[in-house]
């Protein structure tokens, strides 16, 4: 099964050439993250150049600065590019002096969601007047103070335009949510339908906006980590690792090897339980109660294993700045993991042998490889379309560096493909856990929290392959080590836009929960 890099396959003409075009020389000692300043007027050309670079993908766009209370505090627009073939991230930063910056989403469509978010938080917008949607903050619901922004509030609220639909017969739009089925998060769908078929589906993801990035300012990284874990609780290790790595890069701190292996054990356990939960949700959405029960038995055993190994069912409080606070109980893991994973494996085997189940999954919710690349999709959803994107392999940090990893993949991009990718990843996770335990995984901090507290830092980028895909974080620290800007980008931010795409065309209402289970995202991860 061949897999394709998100950019173009073929030889990379050289990072050095690219960087010197951008006006910066790559130093020999450059680490996995290269930062380049690009002047505002040069930004459009730089974006075109980077979008055409083989193996490059635009991983995130965000802004900082723009404090209206500080005169001359211009907004700095940052683009994070994954140069996956070169195993590097490239961060460009550009000072934007006015209210406009070059249109990014025409060149890299993956940036549209972030352009909308930047407009709501900083009041600056791309050239060209394309209408921007409301993606981040809820509308003002009455008199009283406006919601605080990271920068300056926009002059006009976002336009909220969705693509016009033309369909034979009558189409009507029906709002669904934010209070939905029992036991699922609040989320609003605008469903456009002519009866049963889904003509269009768009999401309002701002109901759960808690202002996490706003709240992290002024905190120390260790204090902020508590909130990072609770931004998306089902991705606490992924988000926590990305954030801790960003803070460690900013502080110049290197966690000890055994702590990094402990982090990886926790991350793989998180992947395992999420994939088990997705399996249970798939069974529930297809009405297979027995399969659901079997998957839930596996899930519960995995959560109890997390509690036995790391002291918390959802692995909160494991990652720390500079290492891990608690190491795994290797004895408990070795004893319990085979049985817990065995439950999942047996349930999955039985499910794949159950035709009535597989029939519901095949050709449902197809996301094409072209759409996945265009929208910047990450994680198992992307891998199921044939894109070989996995930061454990593309941007290997300890302990994945030098560790052979089988990146799961499929071709058809439907629900069945996503399910099969998750199962393959679960098997690989069990193998990885065994290897990390073998090499020694334990608690440890490179320096005590007191040693790190108060140390001046600069800025840093961190990443981790969470169960949903690439989780990114970027942090800037002031002279006393407190956060001036923290950016959290869980994988859910990227992948919900693929959900709209996957639901359209040839799918009916009852397919929506099936597709949602196969994506297995969280609303909390995007609405934060």
């Amino acid at each position, binding site marked *: 099964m061949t897999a394709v890099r998100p950019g173009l396959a073929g030889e990379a003409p050289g990072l050095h050439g690219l960087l010197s075009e951008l006006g910066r020389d790559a130093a020999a000692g450059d680490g996995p993250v290269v930062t380049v300043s690009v002047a505002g007027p040069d930004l459009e050309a730089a974006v075109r150049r980077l979008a055409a670079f083989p193996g490059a993908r635009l991983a995130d766009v965000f802004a900082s600065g723009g404090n209206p209370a500080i005169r001359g505090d211009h907004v700095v627009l940052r683009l994070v590019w994954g140069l996956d073939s070169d195993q590097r991230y490239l961060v460009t930063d550009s000072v934007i002096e006015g209210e406009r910056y070059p249109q990014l989403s025409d060149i890299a469509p993956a940036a549209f969601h972030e352009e909308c978010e930047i407009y709501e938080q900083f009041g600056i917008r791309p050239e060209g007047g394309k209408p921007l949607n409301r993606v981040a903050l809820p509308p003002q619901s009455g008199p009283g103070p406006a919601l605080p922004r990271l920068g300056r509030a926009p002059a006009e609220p976002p336009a909220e335009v969705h693509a016009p639909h033309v369909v034979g017969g009558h189409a009507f739009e029906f709002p669904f949510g934010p209070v939905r089925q029992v036991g699922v998060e609040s989320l609003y769908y605008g469903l456009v339908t002519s009866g049963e078929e889904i003509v269009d589906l768009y999401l309002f993801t701002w109901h759960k906006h808690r202002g996490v990035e706003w709240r992290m300012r002024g905190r120390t990284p260790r*204090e902020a980590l*508590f*909130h990072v874990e609770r931004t998306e609780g089902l991705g606490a290790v992924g988000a926590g690792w990305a954030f801790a790595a960003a803070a460690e890069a900013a502080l110049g701190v290197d966690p000890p090897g055994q702590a990094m292996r402990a982090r990886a054990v926790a991350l793989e356990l998180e992947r395992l339980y999420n994939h088990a939960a997705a399996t249970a949700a798939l069974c529930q959405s297809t009405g297979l109660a*027995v*399969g659901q029960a*079997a998957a839930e*038995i596996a899930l*519960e055993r995995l959560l*109890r294993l997390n*509690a*036995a190994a790391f*002291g*918390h*069912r959802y692995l*909160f*409080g494991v990652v720390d700045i500079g290492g891990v*606070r608690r190491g795994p109980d290797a004895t408990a893991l070795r004893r319990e993991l085979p049985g817990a994973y065995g439950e999942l494996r*047996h349930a999955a085997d*039985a499910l794949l*042998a159950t035709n009535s189940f597989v029939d519901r999954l095949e050709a449902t919710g197809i996301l094409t490889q072209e759409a996945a690349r265009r929208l910047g999709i990450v994680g198992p959803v992307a891998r199921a379309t044939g894109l070989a994107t996995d930061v454990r392999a593309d941007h290997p940090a300890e302990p994945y560096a030098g560790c052979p990893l089988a990146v799961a993949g499929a071709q058809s991009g439907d629900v069945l493909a996503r399910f099969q990718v998750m199962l393959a990843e679960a098997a690989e996770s069990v193998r990885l856990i065994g290897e990390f335990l073998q090499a020694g995984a334990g608690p440890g901090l490179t320096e005590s929290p007191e040693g790190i507290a108060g140390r001046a830092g600069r800025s840093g980028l961190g990443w981790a392959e969470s169960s949903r895909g690439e989780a990114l974080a970027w942090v800037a620290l002031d002279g006393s080590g407190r956060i001036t800007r923290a950016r959290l980008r869980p994988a859910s931010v990227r992948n919900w836009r693929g959900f709209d795409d996957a639901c359209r065309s040839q799918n009916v209402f009852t397919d929506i929960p099936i597709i949602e289970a196969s994506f297995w995202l969280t609303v909390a991860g995007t609405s934060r």
Partner: protein
Amino acid sequence: MPLWFARGLRRGVVTTRYPARPDPSAAELPTPPAFRPDALTRELADRLCRVCPSWALTRNGDVLIFDVGACTACGRCREAAPAAVTASGEFELAATDPAHLVKRIPLLGEGAR
């Protein structure tokens, strides 16, 4: 279908007997802290209040006020002062009155005994 039925029979019942019987898995759950009043000085109490990320601890004179409802059992207070703070082991914490969740822990005062 016979496939699932046979497997289910082989595995047996996994359902907890709770509340009729205690469930052994409860022993591995994180729980809110228990404090040793005879080890809590004002200074230590203030340090614990600063360390708590969830605003569950505040000091009022010689009383440490502990809001069990706000506690996430994250363990940072325990790590900061292991001699004075241990895990309570309690997970059946539901209350019908929020006031029942606010605990007043006496500190070692000025004239400590």
